[in-house]
């Protein structure tokens, strides 16, 4: 009788230990594919897998003021439609009612001029530390190239196919696309990346000059 009581205590202890050490719900896989139909439009397909069902069941998309988002569909792992509702509010698209642990979202984003920022749906659940479960693939229109750096930084397999592997889901892809023959050296040089790098180096140089001049003045 007494042994049974001890056994029960041990079982309760083990159960409490396992509950305490259970891993939090996390992002297991996120694959996004952005395919440009033209420099002003792209279709986006995202598949998400989390470690367990639940969470807020909400995704947000942040399109720019000159962009429209159409044809939003949400399906579960088997391709069946999920009863999710998409609505615009204060310039943000809310997709609500997504419950399954694995689902896909598809939509088409169009800009009035060139499509420069492509909004991505970012789930509220994070990946585990030291893992990079987020993969992004971008396909450019035929005959077009990416001008300068992108966000996130893409590795280009060829001029039209880029990809990235990340630790966290970005809410936007920033990419400047132009016809190959229309790209000039100025397009590649006068970008925020090169300007900020130049400014940083200039500041460090000026700071160093100030430092040396100050020391010489004090020594002299």
């Amino acid at each position, binding site marked *: 009788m007494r042994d049974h009581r001890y056994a029960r205590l041990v079982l309760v202890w083990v159960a409490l230990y396992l509950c305490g050490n259970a891993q939090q719900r996390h992002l297991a896989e996120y694959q996004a594919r952005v395919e440009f139909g033209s420099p002003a439009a792209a279709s986006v397909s995202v598949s998400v897998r989390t470690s367990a069902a639940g969470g807020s069941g909400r995704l*947000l998309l942040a399109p720019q003021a000159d962009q429209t988002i159409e044809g939003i569909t949400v399906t579960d792992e088997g391709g069946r439609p999920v009863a999710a509702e998409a609505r615009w509010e204060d*310039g943000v698209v809310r997709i609500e009612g997504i419950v399954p642990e694995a689902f896909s979202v598809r939509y088409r984003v169009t800009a009035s001029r060139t499509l420069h920022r492509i909004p991505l749906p970012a789930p509220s659940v994070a990946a585990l530390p030291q893992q990079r479960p987020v993969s992004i693939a971008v396909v450019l229109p035929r005959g077009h190239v990416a001008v300068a750096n992108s*966000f*996130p930084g893409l590795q280009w397999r060829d001029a039209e196919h880029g990809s990235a592997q990340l630790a966290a889901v970005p809410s936007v892809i920033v990419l400047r696309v132009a016809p190959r023959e229309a790209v000039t050296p100025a397009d590649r040089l006068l970008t*925020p990346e090169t300007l900020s790098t130049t400014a*940083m180096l200039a500041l460090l140089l000026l*700071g160093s000059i100030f430092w040396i001049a100050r020391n010489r003045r004090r020594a002299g």
Partner: protein
Amino acid sequence: MNPLSLHFAVVAAVYFAVVLGIGVFGMRKTKTEEDFLTAGRSIGPWVGGAVLAATQISAGTLVGTVGRHYSTGVSWVWVWPGVWCGWLVSAIFVGPKLREFGAVTIPAYLAARFRSETARLLSAIFIIFAYMILLVAQYQACGVVFESIFGIRPVYAMAILTVSTLLYTTLGGVRSSSYIDFLQILIVVSGLVLSVPVLVYMFGGLNHAGAYLRAMDTRITGSWYNGRQLFGFALSFGLAIAAAPYEMVRFNSMRDKATVRNAIGVCFIFQALIGSCVLIMGLMTRALFPALPSPDQASSIMALNVLPPLVGSLFMVALLSAIMSNVNAILLVASAGVAHDIYGKFINRRASESVKLLVNRASIVALSLAPVWFALNRYTDVQSIVVVQTRFIASFFFVPMIIGLNTRGGNSASAVSSMAGGVAGCLAWSIWTARHASNIDAVEVGIACSALSYFAVNAFTRSDAASLSRPADARS
């Protein structure tokens, strides 16, 4: 190794080679223990202001505060006025007077001012305890940064941090680190300032980011904390800044009283700039990466994925350098407590300068290893650890420092009871609030207990403290 990690490795190698060179230069000029601790009292207002800002702005700001803005939004910004008020108190009531008093360490000051060797011992022990908490935050931040850059386990990052910091701290002391701090603040400020337009551009504007963050959670752009909570945080930071022992060691390295006041003014400029940039950085990183594994990763994920490779790498190097600078400042203060105030006064009173310098450097090595275990366990985020440390520092030192420097009364018993009362109140309330919700912050209880203990004991004991002028034995 991915291209971003490679960029970082090259930039870091160049930077730390420069740091090592300056460290060796500093060692050649360091001859006595006082030289080691005060850099020969030769630093001017601009370098002094940069040094003060660099000493305070460390992993707590670049990892912890960015992470706090990332997770809770705008309202944390109200902690900054508390920090600035702390600097004002320091500029008027603490810094210049302490510089004039001339004590090498805070325990030395308290011992001379209150004619109390017990106050010296107690304050030395409290300094070591409080700064070990802060070291945990710095080590944890370092682990997070390296985890983000290289995907390596935090224990290796902490080993790298310990070895590199030991190298330049034990080689040069304050003289070498003051010049490194100037270089570091230059990189931090330019990296922060440049990151803001890049981040805003990437998301497509501040208004657009505001709408997105509001849709995520209205508290991010509104009020995450209530007024009482913010007051408690601001008070902790403000009072801790006003009486921060490692900032005070920096005052001692400046030329004179006027230099201290001007340096604090310069420090304000750097901090206002950095505070604004850190706020925008936290918010924009939340907009660009809504769900990170830990808010502490916000600054490193931002630097590696959003900024251009060179700017991002330099920012990360500056961040690591800020951690090193802070670890260096903490180790200097804590090891001075061991060598000067515990060993030199209680263990071997006849120790020569060279023996004390040796003990100082040996204790730096020992103290740098102590917090590693706590940092590896990651009990909470970096900013929360910093908040705990500021509460204790404020509760230990604010009352005896302010009263000691600005009044004539007081004695050994009142100073000792003030410090002991402050730590007991703060500790007891921290334990109580871990189980029971309360709107009263532990720092408020700590300060109240400290002040009450001081005045109560002072009322019933004879005042025998030194006058406000610098006593002859203040340096000893």
